């Protein structure tokens, strides 16, 4: 009984610590992006937290997304600022050919996109491990 309790404590502490630690490639492979990035189910702060964790890994791996001048990092920081300010919309500014441009989204949508981009960037690294050779002529790609 004592052994069982001790094991439970160790497991609980371990799981608790792992939830606080940085995201890993292995974590990314097993998560359902639709579920972890669902704003209604996880709350906007929770979704942004997931985005920040996975985007840190994406940056480390050199695979951060950038859509129409806006990086995932900017989606995260600007959306976090909008949440703090209790704004319903977030305006993302970027420069193109020296001119300042902007995209405006609902805050919940921007959070979903930040999370989706961050997680998918890392998941694609896992996927590429098994797919890249399939495109190499003379290797996996037959013609």
């Amino acid at each position, binding site marked *: 009984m004592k052994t069982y309790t001790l094991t439970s404590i160790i497991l609980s502490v371990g799981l608790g610590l792992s939830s606080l630690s940085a995201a890993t490639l292995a974590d990314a492979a097993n998560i359902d992006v639709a579920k972890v990035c669902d704003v209604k189910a996880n709350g906007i702060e929770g979704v942004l937290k997931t985005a920040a964790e996975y985007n840190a890994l994406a940056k480390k791996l050199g*695979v*951060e997304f950038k859509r129409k001048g806006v990086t995932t990092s900017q989606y995260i920081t600007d959306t976090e600022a909008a949440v703090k300010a209790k704004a319903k919309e977030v305006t993302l500014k970027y420069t193109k050919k020296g001119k300042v441009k902007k995209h405006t989204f609902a805050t919940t949508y921007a959070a979903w996109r930040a999370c989706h981009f961050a997680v*998918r*960037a890392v998941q694609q690294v896992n996927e*590429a491990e098994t797919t*890249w050779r399939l*495109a190499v002529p*003379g290797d996996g*790609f037959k*013609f």
Partner: protein
Amino acid sequence: MNVIKITVAALLMASLASAASFNTQAEKDRKALIAYMEKKFSDPAKNKGSFFPYSTNEELSKRFTKGIKRDAFRLGSYAYDKGGKSQYDEVMEMPPFEDNIDAGKALYEKKFANGKTFKSCFPDPAIAGEYPKFDDKKGTVVTLTLAINECLKANGEKPWKMKKGKMADLEAYFASASTEAGKKVHIVIQSEAAAQAYEAGKKAYYSQRGYLKLSCATCHVQGTGKRVRNEYMSPLLGHTTHFPVYRLKWQGLGTLERRIEGCNKDEGEKPHKPGSPWMSNVLYFMAYMSNEMPVDGPAIRK
């Protein structure tokens, strides 16, 4: 005495054999890429089912050139796009980069503050086909762009920006001198570390990335010759032979690094910086794929 000679000869043979073995995989890749491109463009209309399912019969039979061989791919999509090639030929009668070549020559000859010139690092300017190189001492790939900046730093000068301006001008002069001298691309993989850098570049080239989940190969291997809006995508084979290029979109000259950054953006990812290991390894792989092809730069592209 004979024993010494035999031993030296044996060691030399062994070292040559091992040097050759480092590029075994790269040679297989290069030959397979040539075979793929030549087969694809042997008769595009006939190959519609296997290579061009979304193209129209009209464009494949009338707008495409058939029977293209390796060296012609240095022209990029103009190798098979008849309309694009005729426009290219017209522009090349008075190329817009002539002034850039002259500016590059002036930079090559201009004295640094210490009295030396670029000649102290690059005695022969016809070196465009020899880069990137793998530096075994540093354990990294050195692109022509990085080599130019290393030369500047070694002579107490500030490094240049790596995408356009002076860098593109000097590289245009190197490319022009190489083309005039009839030089061919000659990329060497001389060590295990160099082979690893090549493999890293190859993996990066074929890996899907960005929010559009595209790889470089999506457009420039499997996508070669396919139409995006009104333009045909260019082939990986021969890609590095003609840089720097004057792009009509840029209204100016740009280095390979500048072009790759553009591709990164098109894939929906944060671009990799010129001089980063990712960029240098990819360029090393790309340049190896063009080995033995004539240097044909600078050039013009849309």
